[in-house]
């Protein structure tokens, strides 16, 4: 047998020795268990945080664009009034 083959056999043996007795029963127990509540809670927390961030961005955006619109409208009204005055003056 080549030394490399012996090493592979040793590797498999070593790995198998890492499995504690009752491994199969533990696996079956874990497979039957429902996803842990911790995982569900973690997921819900992430979803809630993402929703709150989106809502904050949307609110800021709408308020910001509302202010911009009001400023632009005021500017245009002033220009229109000045144009009107000029026209009447002519």
């Amino acid at each position, binding site marked *: 047998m080549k*030394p490399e083959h012996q090493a592979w056999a040793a*590797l*498999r043996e070593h*790995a198998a020795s890492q499995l504690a007795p009752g491994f199969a029963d533990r696996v*079956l127990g*874990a497979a039957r268990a429902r996803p842990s509540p911790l995982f569900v809670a973690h997921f819900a927390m992430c979803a809630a945080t993402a929703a709150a961030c989106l809502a904050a961005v949307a609110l800021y955006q709408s308020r910001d664009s509302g202010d911009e619109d009001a400023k632009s409208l005021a500017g245009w009204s002033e220009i229109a009034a000045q144009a009107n005055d000029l026209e009447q003056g002519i």
Partner: protein
Amino acid sequence: MRELIVAYQRRVAGFAYAITGRSDSVEDLAQMVFVKMARAIDRLKAPEQFESWLFRLARNTCIDHLRRQKLRRIFTPFAPEHENVPEPEGAVDSEELDALRHALAQLRPKDRALLALVQEGRSHAEIAATFRTSVAAVKARLHRAREHLRQHYHSDET
């Protein structure tokens, strides 16, 4: 189901160890593989392909585990002395195994998986199906992986 787990647990453990190189994660990884197997086996359409399917599950689980570890290191970087913590004292009890472990550690995880599948007695066609690639590509990658392994294995031995 219990019989299936008992029949394959040693082989899956060896496969996971060849890919990760860590004794302390072998049991957790083997457990994850068999839990996935137990939950998905009803959906396996071709029972004759069970072994290929199981080792594909094992390969993906191990590679995902290594990726997660890499990501975790980016977000929570460890001090240099906490990186690459050596195997616990007495965990590796032969020089040959130690040399193989070190040589495998120099390869990419996908190449380690490839070599471990060959050691599992998988044919080139089965490996190609596992990796979703062609037989020719498997042969070429296998040749390169074996060359790299041989180089590192012998340099560790000397």
